[in-house]
Structures are given as structure tokens and as C-alpha cells.
């Protein structure tokens, strides 16, 4: 990515299903922290209500960080993302499938 005037690196983040944002590198640290918490939940394999609630909470935080600290990229911009995060409406099951690299993204003929 190109550097801005402060020489701080900026990253492009896509929220699956909701478009792209530009965020500063320090925001990436926040994203990574929450991301790690989500990974732990996904790896735990547990399915109970408290795991589900915790997953939803982290997911919400993750989305809010990007939406509020990032700048939405204009619709017509064509740019590759550095990072892709799941949208807020993804379920724990869907997230697990995606994490394992299966499901949802089918070998579709969309491309």
C-alpha cells in the first residue's frame, strides 16, 4: 500500500458483504487483538450459548473498529484488500467453516 504523509502505513480492510475501508496501521493492531480472540473461540470447537454470545460480541467489536476508525472506500474504487474480516451477520458455524477453508466460498462461476 502507498504511504500517506505521516509515513504511517495504511491498510485496506474488507468487511465481507459490506465493502472496503482504509485504516491506519495502529488500528490493525486492534483488529488483530480481537481477531485472535475469535480464532480461539473457533478453535475451541465449543458450541454453547456463552461461546456463541462471546463470538457475537467480538464480531461486533471487530466490525465497529473498522467502521468507526476506518474510512469507507468509494464504491467505484477498484483496489485489493490487505485484510478481510467477516461481517457482523456471520454465524459461529459459518465462521468455523470459513476458518477451515471450506463452505460459503464455493468454486462458483461468479468469477
Amino acid at each position: 500500500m502507498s504511504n500517506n504523509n505521516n509515513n504511517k502505513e495504511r491498510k485496506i480492510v474488507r468487511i465481507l458483504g459490506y465493502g472496503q475501508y482504509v485504516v491506519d496501521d495502529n488500528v490493525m493492531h486492534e483488529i488483530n487483538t480481537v481477531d485472535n480472540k475469535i480464532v480461539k473461540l473457533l478453535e475451541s470447537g465449543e458450541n454453547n450459548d456463552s461461546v456463541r454470545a462471546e463470538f457475537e460480541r467480538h464480531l461486533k467489536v471487530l466490525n465497529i473498529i473498522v467502521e468507526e476508525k476506518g474510512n469507507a472506500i468509494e464504491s467505484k474504487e477498484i483496489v485489493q484488500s490487505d485484510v478481510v474480516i467477516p461481517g457482523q451477520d456471520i454465524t459461529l458455524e459459518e465462521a468455523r467453516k470459513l476458518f477451515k477453508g471450506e463452505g460459503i466460498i464455493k468454486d462458483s462461476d461468479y468469477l
Partner: protein
Amino acid sequence: MSFSNRLVNLIKQKVNKVLDNHEDPNEALDYSAVKQAELIQRLRRDIVEVVASKKRLEMQKSRILENINKLDEQAKAAVKAGRDDLARLALERKNANLNQIKELDTQIMAIQNEQNKLENAEKRLSAKVEEFKSRKEIIKAKYSSAEAQVRIKENITGISEEMSDIGMSMSRAEEKTEAMQSKAMAMDEMIESGALVDYTNNKDQIQVELEKTETKSQVEDELAKLKSSIA
């Protein structure tokens, strides 16, 4: 590996396939443009479908609301007639209907969310497709240069990422709409079978009982009148 890196890799794998399939960059640009047009068509069809599903749910909701009003009236009439048993029955049915409304509201909200997502996706993709078209012509004019090669890759990668994301949203929306349609059918059957209220007959069980009660009291009244006139 972090979740976000995994997701970006999943999408990159898909996108790279597109680039790998075309040695001629010009061809890759044209191929992508064709796929973009196809995807937009499909996306618009999906939106129509989602809207139709939502309308169907809303119609069911208004049927059930009518039902609730009717049951309320029946409960009142039953209490007036001193038939608490019938009033109870009407109120029980009303409760079942209220639960259905709750479920329908959740479904309507979920499908509205899908609709919003797809409509926004359509806006994003349309804007990108337009931009891609104009960039494509510019790049094509000098596609043999190394710089043009880089630009081609960037543009195809960027727009393919969007397309891959939209493809996912569409698959999810399609799955959800299908699930909702079968649920809606099941609910239609419930309504038709009279589990929620008897729509098939104009007069349902409660109504018939209420009318019987009414007839009975009319007969009693007349009998009383008759008796008093004779006495």
C-alpha cells in the same frame, strides 16, 4: 493463522485462478468484463427474489394480524355470552398467532438485512464495473507496456475480490430465501389446516359455538316472552 488472513487468502486463491487462466492480458480484461455483466444480472435477479420472499412474509403477517383481531372479537363475544370456555379457546389461539408474528418479524428483519446487503452490493459493483470499463480501454491502448501489465493485474484482482465477496453474499441470501420459503409454505399449510385459525370455513369452531349460544339465548328469550304472555 489469524481469521482475517485466512479469509484474504481464500479470496486470493479464487482471484488468482482468474488471472492464471488467461495468458493474454487483453483477454483477461475482456473475460472479466463479461463475468461482471453476468454477475450484475444475477445479482439483480436475486434482489427481485429476495423482495418477493419478503412480500410473501409480510402478507402472511397481515393475515395473522387479521386473525388476531377476529379472535379478540370472538373472545369478547364469548365472555358476553357467559362462555368462558370459548373465550379461553379464542385467547389460546390468539397466543399461538402472536408467537407466529414474533417469528415472522424475526424472519422479515433477516430478509430485509439480506436485501439491504444485496442492494448495496449492487451499487458498489455497478460503480466498479463502470470504472473498470473506462480503465480497460485506457489500459488496452498500451497493454504491452510493463506498467499496463501491472495495472491489468491490479484491476482484475480488485474487482474479482468484490465479485467473489458478492458471490458469497448471494449464496447466503439464496440459502436463506430458500429456507424461508419452505418455512412460509409450512406456515401456509398450518393456516390452511386450521391449526392457527380455521380459514377454510367462514365459520370456525368458536364462531359456530358462539352462534349456538346466541340462538339458545334468543330461544330462551322468546320462550320467556311466550310464557309471560300466556300467564
